[in-house]
């Protein structure tokens, strides 16, 4: 017995069904493959000096001198600079961002929130090079003139620029988290004669804690990985910063500044710098996953 027209058309449907499934899978694989390729490439290049050429990994991480022409590759000052810049920007950015989120979600009258919220989101869309240019044209001269520095490009300039750049992430993610706190919690607290601000700090923010933590970790990732804006305001000196006004070179700018002309071991060492950077991001993502899992419970 031959297939009826209906069965035939069904067969075609099943075939199409399967085909589309495969196609979507292929699309999904592209991103995974890209990730694998990038990681593989960076690690292969970056680990070569240590595995094949006998450079000490410990010296690389804890070495204070980065002089490629003398075969000295130590990234410790850059690790310190990256960490200081990230922590510093968090100290400024997190409270401002969190208070903005609280204001938008809890206090602001609707018309004001309607103007403020999109402005904050627009801030996220500004290309990072523009943040750098702004920092160079406004923040750097300001610091130079007001703090009496010989050179305004400094750790504090990096911190300020990064703090502004992380605001949209902190604000939007924590605003969402705060809005997700059930109204009944607020009512329960207000009905006990607790003020609105007291309610926000003792009930709403603790209840939104995991979302706010996620916001902080995400913005840390942004701060530690930011390159373009930082390059313009960091000053790029290879020293371990001892004060906020020191010129610094974080990990990202080291790669961006030198990759253009580096060759051989020098180039491989820049990939190794990338590995250090990547490890930080990996740790942050791991922490983020932990936080999200906890928040989901």
């Amino acid at each position: 017995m031959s297939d009826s027209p209906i069965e035939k058309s069904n067969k075609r449907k099943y075939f199409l069904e399967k085909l589309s499934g495969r196609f979507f899978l292929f699309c999904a694989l592209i991103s995974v493959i890209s990730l694998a390729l990038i990681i593989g490439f960076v690690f292969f290049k970056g680990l070569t000096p240590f595995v094949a050429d006998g450079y000490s990994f410990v010296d690389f991480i804890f070495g204070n001198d980065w002089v490629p022409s003398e075969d000295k590759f130590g990234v410790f000052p850059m690790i310190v600079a990256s960490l200081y810049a990230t922590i510093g920007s968090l100290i400024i950015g997190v409270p401002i961002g969190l208070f903005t989120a609280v204001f938008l979600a809890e206090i602001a009258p609707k018309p004001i929130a309607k103007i403020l919220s999109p402005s904050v989101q627009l801030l996220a869309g500004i290309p990072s090079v523009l943040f750098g240019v702004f920092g160079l044209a406004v923040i750097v001269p300001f610091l130079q003139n007001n703090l009496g520095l010989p050179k305004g490009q400094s750790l504090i300039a990096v911190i300020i620029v990064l703090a502004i750049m992380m605001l949209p992430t902190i604000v939007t993610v924590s605003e969402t988290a705060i809005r997700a706190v059930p109204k009944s919690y607020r009512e329960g607290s207000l009905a006990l004669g607790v003020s609105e601000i007291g309610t926000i700090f003792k009930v709403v923010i603790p209840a939104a804690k995991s979302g706010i933590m996620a916001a902080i970790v995400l913005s840390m990732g942004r701060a530690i990985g930011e390159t373009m804006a930082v390059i313009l305001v960091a000053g790029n000196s290879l020293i371990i910063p001892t004060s906020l006004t020191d010129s610094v070179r974080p990990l990202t700018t080291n790669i961006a500044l030198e990759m253009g002309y580096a060759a051989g071991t020098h180039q491989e060492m820049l990939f190794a710098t990338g590995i250090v950077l990547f490890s930080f991001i990996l740790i942050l993502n791991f922490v983020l996953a932990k936080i999200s899992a906890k928040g989901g419970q």
Partner: protein
Amino acid sequence: MKTAINLSNDSSVQAETNKNVKISVNNFNLFYGEKQALYDVSLDIYEKEVTALIGPSGCGKSTFLRSINRMNDLIDNVKISGDIIIDNENIYRTNDVIKLRTKVGMVFQKPNLFPMSIYDNVAYGPRMHGIKNKQELNQIVEESLRGAAIWDEVKDRLKTSALGLSGGQQQRVCIARAIAMKPEVILMDEPTSALDPISTLKVEELVGKMKKDYTIVIVTHNMQQAARVSDRTAFFLNGEVVEYDKTDTIFSVPKDKRTEDYITGRFG
């Protein structure tokens, strides 16, 4: 001596002069934007009694309850006229919401404990009002949980999350949390509607016991509950108080045809 302003003008209410009026409501109107939700509500709520507010959904009983501790302030565009007077203080004139809500506690329809331990939930109010002494807090927590008839069930797990309790237990901890503020009035907004029958019974028994210390106003859609727990009942319909009287009277000889229709289950 103030007496009940009620639409039935029942003499038995006026005759009873040994009870004090705790909350006096005069021509209270409430609007959500353009829409009027309460029309000229006037009634007196007596001290250390249970007053039940009944009526079909959307009749304004919850809105009225929330006017007594000004929880409606949280909603935009709410306008009111008329007076609610508690202990000779017009609560919409004094504008001290914090003081008002300290005096008038509230228990909500769904248990709304905070995601903290049982102890912290009950201690939350007192702590936020400045009590830091540990012993004092311990005492308040124990007294409040005993007062809400839940102490024996939770005394060994005070430091565990309150959200691990059953719904009925959570609701009684909510009552304990309200009691911890030592209020004079407790408002209950359908406190048993999310509970199973046994938990409901426990809460009802508790309400019966609590009225010796507190003035209780309870919204319920369950008429048997109103009949069981309350001393007085107000029947709301479309934002108006149709009838307000002693519960016995309302349920045996209602004056208004609409009340009778409602309590005999003809609508609502």
